[in-house]
């Protein structure tokens, strides 16, 4: 059968190419390379975009800047993000648990939240002056505020969406209310609680950058804004890249912690 030999032959070559080339990795690298090439090409070829720094210029900017300046700004941003984030969890988590677990708490707290929540956190920037005198506290308040709602809502959602059979089985086993919360409800809600934390982490980075741009108190947002005012665009793009990197580090960190606490979910 000629059909048959043709099939075998084509399979043979397919097998050979798969053995020696990791095509999936190759495609990933190509995607990256293509992006940089396209970026350079657009800047070089289109007059309109010639103000945009090329990848090469950005790369060179990395060596022009005193390393310490970048590091100090990075640290400032990190501290603000983490402070806001943990404050958000510290206050948001118990509230989320309370409104997820108790109808009374939900009735008292939830409607007010629903009124405030649609206001984008960035709209709060000017108003923070009313609450805090120090600029530093204003920035941290803002990051806290960004983290707060995702944590509250996902904690609440996670708790109220627990498969009813799990607490029911626990009721039959004779657990008291406290045991029920700690031993059944919270573990079951854990995956969504961490989803909330991941979201919160993303939002705190957005807010810290916005706040720092306004504040003149250092941080990566300030770094980008300052370089913009002196029209040093390679450094603007460099700063953007660093912010992206910091955000990614934080997301990976929180995902890692989350995976640890919900490891039972992913094992096969």
């Amino acid at each position: 059968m000629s059909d048959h030999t043709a099939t075998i032959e084509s399979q043979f070559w397919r097998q050979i190419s798969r053995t020696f080339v990791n095509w999936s990795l190759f495609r990933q690298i190509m995607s990256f390379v293509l992006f940089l090439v396209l970026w350079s090409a657009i800047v070089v070829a289109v007059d309109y975009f010639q103000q945009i720094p090329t990848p090469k210029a950005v790369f060179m900017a990395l060596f022009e800047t005193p390393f310490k300046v970048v590091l100090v700004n990075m640290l400032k941003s990190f501290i603000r993000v983490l402070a806001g984030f943990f404050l958000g969890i510290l206050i948001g988590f118990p509230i989320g648990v309370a409104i997820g677990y108790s109808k009374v708490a939900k009735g008292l707290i939830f409607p007010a939240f629903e009124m405030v929540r649609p206001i984008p956190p960035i709209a709060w920037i000017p108003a923070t002056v009313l609450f805090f005198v120090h600029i530093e506290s204003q920035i941290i308040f803002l990051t806290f505020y960004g983290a707060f709602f995702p944590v509250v809502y996902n904690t609440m959602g996670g708790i109220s969406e627990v498969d009813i059979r799990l607490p029911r089985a626990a009721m039959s086993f004779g657990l008291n209310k406290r045991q029920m919360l700690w031993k059944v409800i919270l573990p079951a809600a854990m995956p969504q609680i961490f989803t909330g934390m991941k979201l919160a982490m993303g939002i705190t980075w957005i807010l810290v950058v916005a706040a720092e741009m306004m504040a003149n108190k250092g941080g990566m947002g300030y770094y980008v804004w300052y370089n913009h005012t002196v029209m040093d665009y390679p450094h603007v793009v460099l700063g953007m890249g660093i912010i992206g990197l910091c955000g990614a580090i934080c997301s990976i960190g929180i995902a890692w912690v989350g995976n640890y606490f919900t490891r039972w979910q992913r094992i096969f």
Partner: protein
Amino acid sequence: MSTSNQGSEVIFNNVGKMAIFKKNQTVILKNCSFTVEPGKLTVLIGPSGCGKTTIINLIAGYERPDIGRVKMDGQPITGPNWERLVVFQETALYPWLTCYENVMFGPLSRKVMTKEKAHEETLKLLAKVGLEDFRDKYPSQLSGGMQRRAELARALINQPKVMLMDEPFRGLDAMTRQLMQEYYLKLFEETDASHVFVTSELDEAIILADNLLIMTNKPSKIQKIIEVDLPRPREWSMVTSKRYLEIKAEALELLHEEAVKASTTSGKVDVDLSGLLEPVNTD
């Protein structure tokens, strides 16, 4: 635990139960009366959405009847208790606990066993259900049949007086299902507890049952009680016996009649209400 667990009697006396479903009030059970005889295996069969799960919930104490009484050994049932344990549809093992931790969860939470005692009992039960090699696996790492066996062990360690099986083998493939049925039969024949078993599969129902209760459509009640007088211990080979086929023919006739009625009276034959009826209520 050294105390022997005597099977209990459960009596439904003219029970009525309503539920809100998609904003419409529906009567699920109406004039529903039957007795779960002590130490017997009572099987409930009927079209889905006919309130079988509601009956399980009423016996377990997760729901209360609107009308009528549900009593266990003469006492009204007021809430969930370890004496009446449910093996749920699909699995309700705690996914964040290993197989071993799941089994000892009940007695340790109630603090009725020491750690050592619970450890010992758990190992004994895991061996009994053939999971000793899988004790440190999480439920997601177990096959469907294994999950069901782990769940049986988790209930049995509490020595319940009534076991409530809510379509426990649904979703298993045919072979695993038959293995589980044979397995469960053996387990039942060894214990004294009363069992209530809900299913929509007729062969499963007949091979397991002492009493086969055939339910009507909503509003449901017991249409007919068929006493399954096949000898115990039961074996799967009985499905070709004359008596078995007689019982099956009788049951088929009744079930078919209900199914036809359901498809002609209401558009929705098979809306399964189970699990959708009540919001999580842990207060």
